C-alpha cells in the first residue's frame, strides 16, 4: 500500500445531491464505492473508478481557483431508504457488503449493499442555481437532469436507542460498533450481526462524541451539555470489558478552563495505538490517555470541529468543520501539514460535516452541507 502523503492532494470527483445537507460519508470495502447520507434520511451509493479521471471536465478552467466543478460529476446508482430522520453517521464492514447507518430517527440500520433492488427512484443532483452554474461551466441539460437509482430496503433495524444517535465509532476490524444517543445511551454492538454486547450506564447527557479504541476494549464518551442543560458535561474513558469508568477526564484543568461544564464535543477518535485521543469542539485537542494531559491543541475550524480521525499509522490527524476544509496535522505536535479544499470565507457558508479515508488511504471523501460530496485523491 503506498504511503499516505497528505501534501499531494488533488480533486477527483464531484458528487452533487440536491436533497438538503449531505451529512456523512463512508467508503465501502475499498476505494471504489462510496455512500453518503443526508438530513432527510436518505442514503446514496456511488461507484467510483478507483483511479483519477482521465480529463478535467469541460469548463473546469473557467473557475478562479479550485471548486467542485473542477472535477467530473459522478452519478449515484443506489438509494438506501428506510430512515425517517437525519442520517448522522455511516460505517461499513471491511468487505463492503454491509453498510451501517445511524439516524436521528433513533435507529441504527444495517443494509446489504448487494441486495436486490426493490424498485427505482428519481434523485435530483442539481438545484436550479447549481444547475445553471453547471451549464455555464460546460455541462449539458442531460448532465444536470435527475437520475434514476435502484432503491434498497434495510436488512435489519436496531432499536436499542431512544434518542438521536450521533455518537458512532467502529473498531479497526469492523466487528464492533459503538453508538451513543442524546439520552446518554451508549451501546457496543457486534457487527454485522447487530447484537447488543454492552450498554454503558452514563449520566444521561448527550453522548454526541464517542470513540472506540481499535481493539474495542476502551471507549471514550463525551456527555455533552451547555449553559442551559441540566446535566453537567463529562468526558470519560470506559473499560468495555467491565462496563465501568476507567478514567474521568472531566476535571482536567485545561479543559475546564476552556469549556467549564460544557463538554459538548462533536467528535472523538482514538489513535491506532490507543495511547492518544483526539477531541473536536472549538479546537482540536490531543490527549495522552494514560496521563489525561493535553499533548497539544490547535484552532482552525472557526470554532466548529465536526469530525476528527487518525491515519492508519497514527502519524496524521485529520479534522474538518465549519471552515469547509479538511486540515491534516502531524499527530505528534499538531502542526498543520496540509489543508484540503478552500475555506468559503464566511461564517454564513455551508459546513463540512464529515469525511472518510478509503481503506487504502489514497482517497478522501467529504460530506458537504451544500448538498454534495467531494472525492479527493492523494497522489503517490
Amino acid at each position, binding site marked *: 500500500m503506498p504511503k499516505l502523503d497528505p501534501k499531494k492532494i488533488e480533486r477527483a470527483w464531484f458528487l452533487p445531491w440536491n436533497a*438538503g*445537507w449531505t451529512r456523512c460519508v463512508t467508503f465501502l470495502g475499498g476505494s471504489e464505492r462510496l455512500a453518503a447520507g443526508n*438530513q*432527510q434520511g436518505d442514503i446514496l451509493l456511488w461507484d467510483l473508478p478507483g483511479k483519477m479521471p482521465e480529463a478535467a471536465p469541460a469548463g473546469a478552467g473557467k473557475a478562479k481557483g479550485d471548486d467542485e466543478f473542477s472535477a467530473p460529476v459522478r452519478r449515484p446508482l443506489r438509494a438506501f431508504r428506510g430512515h425517517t*430522520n*437525519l442520517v448522522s453517521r455511516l460505517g461499513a464492514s471491511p468487505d463492503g457488503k454491509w453498510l451501517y447507518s445511524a439516524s*436521528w430517527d433513533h435507529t441504527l440500520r444495517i443494509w446489504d449493499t448487494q441486495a436486490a433492488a426493490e424498485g427505482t427512484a428519481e434523485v435530483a443532483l442539481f438545484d436550479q442555481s447549481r444547475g445553471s452554474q453547471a451549464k455555464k461551466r460546460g455541462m449539458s441539460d442531460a448532465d444536470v437532469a435527475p437520475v434514476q437509482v435502484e432503491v434498497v430496503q434495510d436488512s435489519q433495524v436496531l432499536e436499542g436507542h431512544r434518542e*438521536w444517535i450521533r455518537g458512532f465509532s467502529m473498531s479497526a476490524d469492523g466487528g464492533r460498533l459503538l453508538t451513543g444517543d*442524546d439520552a446518554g445511551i451508549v451501546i457496543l454492538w457486534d457487527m454485522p450481526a447487530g447484537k447488543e454486547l454492552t450498554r454503558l450506564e452514563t449520566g444521561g447527557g448527550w453522548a454526541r462524541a464517542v470513540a472506540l479504541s481499535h481493539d474495542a476494549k476502551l471507549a471514550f464518551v463525551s456527555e455533552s451539555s*451547555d*449553559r*442551559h*442543560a*441540566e446535566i453537567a458535561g463529562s468526558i470519560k474513558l470506559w473499560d468495555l470489558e467491565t462496563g465501568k469508568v476507567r478514567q474521568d477526564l472531566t476535571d482536567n484543568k485545561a479543559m475546564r478552563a476552556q469549556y467549564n461544564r460544557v463538554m459538548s464535543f462533536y467528535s472523538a477518535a482514538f489513535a491506532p495505538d490507543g495511547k492518544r485521543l483526539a477531541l473536536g469542539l472549538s479546537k482540536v485537542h490531543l490527549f495522552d490517555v494514560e496521563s489525561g494531559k493535553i499533548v497539544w491543541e490547535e484552532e482552525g475550524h472557526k470554532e466548529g470541529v465536526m469530525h476528527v480521525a487518525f491515519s492508519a499509522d497514527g502519524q496524521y490527524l485529520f479534522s474538518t468543520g*465549519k471552515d469547509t476544509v479538511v486540515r491534516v496535522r502531524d499527530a505528534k505536535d499538531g502542526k498543520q501539514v496540509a489543508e484540503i479544499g478552500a475555506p468559503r470565507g464566511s*461564517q*454564513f*457558508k*455551508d*459546513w463540512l460535516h464529515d469525511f472518510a479515508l478509503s481503506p487504502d488511504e489514497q482517497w478522501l471523501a467529504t460530506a458537504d*452541507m*451544500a448538498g454534495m460530496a467531494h472525492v479527493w485523491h492523494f497522489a503517490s
Partner: protein
Amino acid sequence: MHRLCQPGEHFSRRAFMKSALVAAGGAAVANWGGLVNSQAVAAELQKTGKRCIMIWLGGGASQIDTFDMKVGRPNAGPFRPIQTNLPGLEICEYMPNVAQLADKLCVIRSMSTGDPGHISGTHLMHCGRRNEGIVEYPEIGSVVAKYLGRPDSALPSFIQFATGGQSGPRAGSGFLGPKYQPFRMSTDKPPAFTTGYLKEDEEQRRRDLFQFAQGEFTADRHAESYQAYQEAKESAWRLMDVRDIFSVQKEWPKVKDLYGDTEFGKRCLLARRFVEAGVPFVEVDNAGGGWDTHELNFDGHKRLIPPMDKGWAGLLIDLEQRGLLDDTLVIWQGEFGRTPGINNRIGRDHFARAWTTVLAGGGVKRGYVHGKTDADGRTVTEGLVDTGNYFATIFHALGIDPKAHNYIGIRPIPVAPDHSKVVQELLA
C-alpha cells in the same frame, strides 16, 4: 449579537432605596402619566384580583419547532410531533408536559408583528408599539402595575426577571413614571436587601428611631421631598416584612419535581408566589436570550425546550390547583419567531411575519388554536393578529380598557395603540 447587561443584575438594598425614593417622588409630580385622571379606574380594577405572568423567550423561539409544526415539509426540521390532550393539536415531541395541558391553552399561530430586530422587537412585544423615540411608551408590566397594582401592597406591582442576553433592553415604565418601574431580579436567589445586615430587634429599633426623628424633623417642615423620602423608607421596610416571599428555599423541595429542578423552574415558582401574594405582573425570563439560534437551531431548541416545558407546565398546574389560573393570564412569547427556512448553519433566523404566541388562564379561551399559516409557515393565511390587536386583547382579558387614556401633558395616549381591536375569538 451582544449581551446586554440589565440593571437588575446589580440590584442592591441601596439601589432599591434609591429607586423607591424616585418612585415616591414621582407620585407627587402633578399629572405624571395622567394619574389623577385614571386613578379612579385603577382603584376599581385593583379589586378584580387579575394578574399576569409573562414567560419571555428572549431571542425568539421557533414556532415551527414548537406549536406550528410543518410535518413532511422540507423545512420541518428533525423534531417530531406528539398529540396533545386537545384533539387535532400536535406540538413538539420535547413538550410532553405542556402537551397534557393543551386544553388550557390559547395558541395563536397567526402573529404577524413585522419587526425582526432584537431590540426593536423586544420593545414592540413589551410595549405594543414601536419605539418612536419621542414618546417613551411603558411596557405592559408597568401598565398592568398601574391599573391592577395595589398602593397599599408591601410588594412591588411589577416584578421582572431580566437576565439580559441577546434579547433587547426593557423599556421600563416610560411616561407612566418611576412609580411603575419594574422591580428587577436577575436570578432566583432573594435580592440582597432581603438579607438584613442587622438583627431583627436592632432593625426594629432603627426603624423606630427613624420614625421618631423623621416625625420631629417634619413636624414643622412640609416639603414634598421629605414626605417622599419617608414613604420610600416605609415602602422598603414593608418590603422587608414580606421578604420571605422571595425565598423558595422551604417550598422548593416539595415542588421541584413539578416545576423541574432548573433555574427557570425556580423563577416560575417565584412567579406563582408573587401573584399569589398579590403582585399583578411578573415577567419570567427564560434562557436569557438563548433562543436566538441562528446556528444549530435544533440543538439549541432541544436543550431549551425541555426545561421550559417543565417549568411552564408546572406553573400552569400549580396556578390551577390553587385556584389562581382563572384570574391569572399566562403569556408565552418572545420578540418574534424564527424563519421557516433552515439556513446553512442549521439555524433559523429572525421571523416576525407568521409566528406563534400562547396565552393561558385568566380571560382567554381554553383549548383553542387561533389562525393558520401556509404549508411552509411563511405567511399567515387565516386570523392574522397584529401587535396592536394582540395587546388590546391582553389588556381586555385583564380587565383593562385598551382605549383608556393616559396623558403626556395634555396629549392622550391610549393603553393599546390607536385603532387596535380586541380579538374577540381569543376571549373566554
